[in-house]
């Protein structure tokens, strides 16, 4: 089990066929204070790169995209009442949803930690 990242700053942690998805430390820092979160309902079909959840800061609304295709198992029910959790612990308690992935190899194909760190350095460049 290892963590993978998308260019849109989602993280994915795969355990068997179940992936936990959230937004990265970098993403929460860019968004600022998160005041609203909408997570998907169980059973929702997700396509890779399709809209999966919503996160809003004081300034703006943003979409959280599905990193790979699959089906939602559960949304993080704690987030809508405590959206600030995403700022406080984005890669822990601030996870957005769990999904059953159609093809685990799709997750492996995403960026690993080293590649994502390099990607962030390029963005900062």
């Amino acid at each position: 089990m290892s963590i993978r990242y998308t260019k849109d700053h989602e993280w994915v942690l795969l355990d068997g066929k179940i992936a936990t998805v959230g937004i990265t430390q970098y993403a929460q820092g860019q968004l600022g204070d998160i005041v609203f979160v909408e997570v998907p309902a169980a059973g929702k079909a997700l396509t890779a790169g399709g809209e999966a959840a919503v996160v809003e800061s004081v300034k703006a609304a943003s979409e959280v995209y599905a990193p790979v295709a699959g089906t939602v198992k559960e949304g993080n029910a704690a987030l809508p009442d405590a959206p600030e959790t995403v700022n406080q612990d984005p890669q822990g308690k601030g996870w957005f949803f769990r999904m059953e992935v159609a093809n685990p190899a799709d997750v492996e194909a995403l960026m690993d930690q080293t590649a994502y760190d390099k990607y962030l350095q390029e963005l900062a460049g």
Partner: protein
Amino acid sequence: MTIDPHVKNIGIKSTPLHALHVALGAKMVPFAGYDMPVNYPLGVLKEHLYTRAQAGLFDVSHMGQATLTGNDVVAALEALVPGDLAALTPGQIRYNLLLNDDGGIIDDLMVTKADAPDTLYLVVNAACKDGDFAYIAGKLAGKATLTRHEDASLLALQGPAAVDVLATFIPAAATMDFMTSRLDTFEGVPVRLFRSGYTGEDGYEISLPNVSAEKVAKALLAAPGVQPIGLGARDSLRLEAGLCLYGSDIDTATSPVEAGLSWVIGKRRREQGGFPGAARIQKELKEGASKKRVGIKPLGKAPARAHTEIQDASGKRVGEITSGGFGPSANGPVAMGYVDASLAKVGTPLNLIVRGTALPAEVAPLPFVPHRYVKKA
């Protein structure tokens, strides 16, 4: 997640405080052609709450400042705005609207009657300033002379602590009434003070030479109870205060009556007219406008942003949100928008179409957070 890539702007303008913003750790974004701080390390939410609790310092040097002079400058400018300028005594400020011939709003602006005879001081929006000043100078050619002050910066010190902070540098600041202006000095720097603002709080706007802007800003930031505040919190503060953002809540397609700004039009001006679009505006004052700007309170937690469709209870489209977001002091979503006049009554149920879903909302009184202007110093 969608995150704007770092914007590398070539040719973007900056204010004299740009280096200070960067040194303070601001996140800079392009706004109205300027590279401006959207927030500092404190973040929009805490900056907003800090301003309501203490005092926030805003750099609004991108706004346009000008002096208008002429033998009959008041009558001259009254030909372009509906506010009663003749009633102003020296040092008084009036919120006003620059109108086009259709009665649409070209910009909103602050007009101050200066102590010098036959002189008005104008402060207009950054994005509109070139157009405004060209319009005014063109329309008033031969009657008044407009002099832009591009050598002047503008700071805003807003919040309940602003008076005590500023009075340590300028004692007379504490004696000013809201919506008045005076000339003074700040540690030797000549300044024009305005007791006014865009947050709903008591506070000041300080016009001063560009060369002294950083020195004065640093002196204010060193005072206890002052934090630098970015444009992000400026927007959420003014939204909670029910104040219009030009280009979002008002524009050339909206009239003062539709915008709920009829109060700007003095009694004498209502009767006499003599401003652009007077016929339409006088008709709307008598008969009402077909649409109206209202406060809108989403009843759930989801913010409704600008351009969100508004429907009535039957599902018919009745308008659009023009400003909306999360109100940190209101502790929930707040919005403003235009609805059919028949639906403008406080408490009227509406639906907001957010990401394809109808979310319940209702017409709410403005402001969302009570104004705390100082009425009498």
